[in-house]
């Protein structure tokens, strides 16, 4: 462990709200607009954290706990998350399972908080979220299993930190398949196009946004912040599969990882700018496709 490993979770929490800003600016560029300021997400958080919240009388403590638990889960996930060649502060055998379960726990609390409102909209969103998760979670675990077998190590940091020019030249097909699968998961888990439209105002078509319609003020601030951190977490899983290898200087590795996330955010904006959203019934097919890519990667490790 080194300074960069300690620095990464801190930077992740602090810089994550920049990612939606970059995506929105990219989309605005493609549309010929100027777009919102890069720091808009920070302005929104600042505004939300100064606001009070209104709670429906039909909700219980679960509704209030949802955003906090989800945010806490993502902070915990950052502790085992490597970024590129920068290992995580905590690394142990099987930590990738912990990561998957932390993401699952956060999702669970978001979903039950939505159901707690008793609103038909939020119930619909919760049902969609869970349905998609049924396909997304196995894909993530299979992809991580492929990486674990490739690295012959059960810790996330070892799986990612060990990638070097030699590994890429030898296991390129495997890594390419998993990277493609993870990119689809990254889009779908973060409710980006083509799975969910983060810009839409139409409740009936939403997945994630509709689950948090009843949250306001500080709670909604945490929801937004958690969404940005989740973008970071899943983004790191994709970015880490790409070069460059370790430079020997931890801070340079960290900078390379951050640059990778920036490029990924721009790529996300570009994808969203030239693709229409898929029909909701087709989303599971897309996720099964991601699962198949990851499974193929796993198969390759049995050669």
């Amino acid at each position, binding site marked *: 462990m080194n300074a960069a490993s300690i620095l990464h979770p801190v930077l992740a929490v602090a810089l994550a709200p920049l990612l939606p800003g970059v995506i929105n600016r990219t989309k605005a560029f493609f*549309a010929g607009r100027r777009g919102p300021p890069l720091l808009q997400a920070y302005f929104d958080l600042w505004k939300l954290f100064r606001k009070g919240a209104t709670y429906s009388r039909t909700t219980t403590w679960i509704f209030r706990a949802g955003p906090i638990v989800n945010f806490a889960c993502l902070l915990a996930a950052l502790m085992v998350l490597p970024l590129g060649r920068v290992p995580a502060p905590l690394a142990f055998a099987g930590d990738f399972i912990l990561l998957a379960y932390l993401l699952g726990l956060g999702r669970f609390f978001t979903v039950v908080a939505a159901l707690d409102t008793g609103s038909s909209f939020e119930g*619909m969103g919760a*049902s969609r979220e869970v349905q998609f998760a049924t396909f997304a979670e196995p894909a993530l675990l299979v992809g991580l299993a492929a990486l674990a077998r490739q690295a012959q190590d059960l810790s996330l940091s070892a799986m990612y930190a060990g990638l070097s020019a030699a590994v890429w030249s030898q296991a390129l097909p495997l890594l390419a398949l998993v990277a493609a699968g993870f990119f689809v998961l990254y889009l779908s888990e973060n409710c980006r196009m083509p799975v969910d439209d983060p810009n839409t*105002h139409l409740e009936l078509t939403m997945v994630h946004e509709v689950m948090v319609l009843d949250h306001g003020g500080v709670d909604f601030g945490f929801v937004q912040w958690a969404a940005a951190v989740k973008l970071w977490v899943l983004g790191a899983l994709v970015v880490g599969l790409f070069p460059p290898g370790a430079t020997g200087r931890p801070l340079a590795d960290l900078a390379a990882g951050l640059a990778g996330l920036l490029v990924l955010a721009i790529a996300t904006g570009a994808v969203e700018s030239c693709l229409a959203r898929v029909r*909701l019934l087709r989303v599971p097919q897309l996720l099964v496709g991601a699962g198949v890519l990851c499974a193929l990667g796993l198969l390759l490790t049995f050669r």
Partner: protein
Amino acid sequence: MSILVFRHLEKVPNGQIPLLPIDDFRRAVLDAVAEGCRVVAFYGVPQSGPAVRLVAVLAREAAAELRAVATDPGESYPALTPECPQAAGFEREIAEQWGVKPLGHPWLKPLRFHRSYRPGHDAWDRPEGELPAPSVMDFFRVEGEGIHEVAVGPVHAGIIEPGHFRFQCHGEQVLHLEISLGYQHRGVERALLGGPHPRTIHHAETLAGDTTIGHALAYVQALEALAGCRVPARAQALRAVALELERLANHTGDLGALAGDVGFLPTASFCGRLRGDFLNMTALLCGSRFGRGFVRPGGVAFDVDAALVADLRGRLDAAFRDVAGAANLLWETPSAMARFENTGALAPETAVELGLVGPAARACGLELDVRRDFPSGIYRFAQLPVSACAGGDVFARSYVRWLEIRRSVEFIRGQIAALPGGPVRAPCGPPAADVTVVSLQEGWRGEIAHVATTDAAGRFARYKVVDPSFHNWLGLALALRNQEISDFPLCNKSFNLSYGGHDL
């Protein structure tokens, strides 16, 4: 002759509309519909004393003829709706306005939630003096395992008009959609009684905010027919230019909004701007982006000069070039087309039964267009092809709009290249007494029908307005059957109906 056959904009003396006993009236209407007629308007006219007379106006496009027949139903009559579904909305309206009960109507509920126009006669025997609250009533319910109900509106997430939508769903699948409107009821039809007043034209312009030119044209046409006014050719051409510009602006906006609903940003962004460009062209004509104050009885309020025509032409060419690019990008994007195709499809038979009009009907392959079937003004001399498309789905409804955009641009180019000379306004005298005139106009949403009936003093005794939305809302409800609920916004946008035009 048991039914009166007459022409568009013909002055029909009120006494000439055959008054039949209710059974003969029903047979006459049902026979006409079986023959291929469409119900244009079906409404009550108050008589001296408490009685109400029902008048049905039908259109037969194939013969370019209109038909009318009347009856005195008393307090109730056997409903037409079971045999003629396109009368469903009209009969609910008659029950609500006059307290005349259509017996056997399958879904007799208020439309706009106002008090009966005949005090003491209420179709639902509601207590007098209490104002009915919109949408407070029972909705059609589906029962069973896994069925859930979703209520949307009347307050929506976008900047749109209010309306309530009640879905009966099984998972993501919509089994039934019931639409309850009336929140925008302003009482325009009643405000028009006793007219024409100087303010009547303003009422007409605001019947449906995005169809200013369409409704204003339908009104002035009726008035000019009543007064026997001859509109100068130059004014007729300019009116048509304004009407087509209105169509261009709205169709372009719709294409953009449809792309936006599936998250396809390029077309959405382009069309959002281009709609403004077309609105600005209307502003060039009259100073108002929505065409307020342009159409006036006897002609138009503003003339154009050569410089303005050249400016208009340049702007039109530039905007059309960009619209073509944005639209073709949409048609060539497989991910967008995958969402449009086979979504919200309506069978042609359903469209005929419901009496759909406008692009929604033409998207089902029905060749209906007032500009061709009942032409008035310059459309009598300059024909536009009917833009129809088979399929009845979201794609067909959007593609019909694109076809119409192309043809409207061509039409405007032709008109402004050869504008007739002369004045743009002629004096319009007082309306004739004791006559009825049916005025039709193809607004961008479809057939706008105004039926003006004057009394012995030449004032409006009844002024019936039928916005195309009134025919088409039920089409949207049926298009949603067995669709995914997440496709509702897309289907809704593909119809893009007016709440204000329905609620009047």
